[in-house]
């Protein structure tokens, strides 16, 4: 594969808004949905126990099958070993691959539909991990989409499957359906009303996992939370997806109530909070990643509540992505250290917010 191909493809990606933040399509509270399936090819060692040679052979065998998937029409194939650190960061920030994937060597690749709505990782934790992603709450459709992709792959590949245990995955926590459905939520109302912890506790008891903006091990930067199913065996995909959807809609209601009470009970505090966020974002000369996400979250909430005007939510969402280290360095056209990044980030946010106003 041409090593420059990956770079060019990533350049193209950066020009479009991430699939999970498509302009104007999310509802404010429910940001995006994603459904992924884990699959393995019959008779081959799982990636963690396979040699590099095994991995390369598997990719070689899967490449023609994934490359001509109807559902992905002319996909982009990116071999991890041909990507630099910055490009890997960009793919992670756009939710097109996992952080673990970035550490993989030869034989690992990401296959992307050009609009980023479908992404398939080869040789991550499992041989194949495919996801469908879209803005807003769209789990049932996404399940249908990825189900179709899966069936198309399955017509060419014999999966590791048993009637009792279902699809056999490298980690027993994914065995059975291999499904992980997740929804990204912006919940500043519940955070500012100090109610988020009790919600997280309740949700965990219902068998859902709560994670931060960029998945496992990340905190909920910018008041963004990812909710996903934890169990994969013993229920159908539809049941799993519908339960998550139901709980998401309940949390959506709680957040709306939280926002209303915030205005009623803490009106002065919240106006001050929004004003300060606008002040910092439009005037600061150094912004770190964390502060930026916090301030953008405040601005986003202010717009949703109609207290701040002049910008659109989609613009703020774009900044959520563009101010991340990988995207920022891509825009700067070079790898830069933390201090220079903070300068570049503040400059970018200032310019965008003032230009857009």
């Amino acid at each position, binding site marked *: 594969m041409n090593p420059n191909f990956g770079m060019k493809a990533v350049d193209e990606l950066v020009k479009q808004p991430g699939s999970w933040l498509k302009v104007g399509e999310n509802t404010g509270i429910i940001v995006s949905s994603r459904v992924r399936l884990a699959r393995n*090819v019959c008779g081959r060692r799982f990636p963690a126990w396979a040699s590099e040679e095994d991995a390369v052979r598997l990719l070689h065998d899967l490449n023609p099958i994934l490359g001509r998937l109807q559902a992905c029409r002319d996909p982009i194939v990116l071999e991890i070993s041909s990507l630099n650190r910055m490009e890997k960061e960009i793919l992670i920030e756009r939710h097109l691959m996992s952080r673990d994937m970035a550490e993989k060597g030869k034989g690992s690749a990401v296959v992307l539909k050009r609009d980023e709505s479908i992404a398939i990782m080869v040789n991550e934790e499992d041989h194949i991990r495919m996801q469908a992603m879209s803005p807003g709450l769209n789990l049932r459709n996404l399940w249908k989409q990825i189900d179709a992709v899966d069936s198309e792959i399955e017509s060419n590949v*014999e999966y590791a499957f048993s009637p009792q245990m279902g699809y056999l995955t490298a980690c027993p926590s994914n065995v*059975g359906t291999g499904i992980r459905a997740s929804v990204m939520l912006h919940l500043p109302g519940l955070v500012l009303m100090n109610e988020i912890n009790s919600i997280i506790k309740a949700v965990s008891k219902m068998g859902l996992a709560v994670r931060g903006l960029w998945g496992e091990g990340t905190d909920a930067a910018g008041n963004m939370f990812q909710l996903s199913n934890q169990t994969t*065996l013993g229920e159908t995909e539809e049941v799993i997806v519908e339960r998550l959807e139901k709980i998401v809609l309940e949390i959506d209601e709680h957040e709306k109530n939280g926002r209303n009470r915030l205005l009623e009970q803490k009106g002065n505090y919240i106006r001050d909070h929004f004003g300060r966020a606008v002040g910092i974002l439009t005037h600061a000369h150094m912004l770190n990643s964390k502060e930026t996400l916090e301030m953008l979250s405040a601005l986003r909430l202010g717009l949703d509540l109609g207290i701040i005007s002049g910008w659109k939510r989609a613009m703020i969402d774009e900044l959520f992505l563009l101010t991340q280290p990988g995207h920022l360095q891509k825009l700067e056209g070079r790898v830069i250290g933390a201090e220079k990044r903070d300068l570049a980030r503040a400059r970018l946010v200032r310019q965008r917010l003032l230009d857009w106003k």
Partner: protein
Amino acid sequence: MLCQVCGKKEATVHLTQMLNDEVRKMHLCEQCAEAGGIDVNVPASMTNFLLGLGAPKKTKAESVNRACPQCGMHFSDFKKLSRLGCQDCYAAFAEELEPLLNGMQKGARHVGKKPEHYAGAVNVPPSMASLKKVLDEAVASENYEEAARIRDQIHEAETRATGILASAKRSGEAGSAPAAAENTNGSNKERR
């Protein structure tokens, strides 16, 4: 009265068990009772009978650090990596994985999507706990034919578990091992 297991010989051993406040009875011939390890002088439960637990207990290999015959992963490797080595590890470590799966999953049996072209090439036996549960249910509903069938499945699973450890010696028994050899070449078939 005929034996409820073989249905041929006269039942001379009668077992009684309380299940959900209901009295269940089971009638067996001497041979079937003996095969189930029942000492007529010692009270025994029907489930134990069906599992052959009345018989002297086999020495279990569970303290051994089992290895997957297909990929060579030891259970200790899985503990370190938290990832299995291959699909056959599910069968090789079925006993060890069972408590783990019970803790992290909602059910013990897959009810979701199945591959359209599934040919049954991967043979992962049902877990011991789920088999025992089904056996209890069969006993509770007095479906002894079904119970005997499940008992055989449990025995088969036990044989397979030990067969894995002694697989080198028992290479003649290809039928009881997961169809791994064919899979290695037959994985990624072009079906179009």
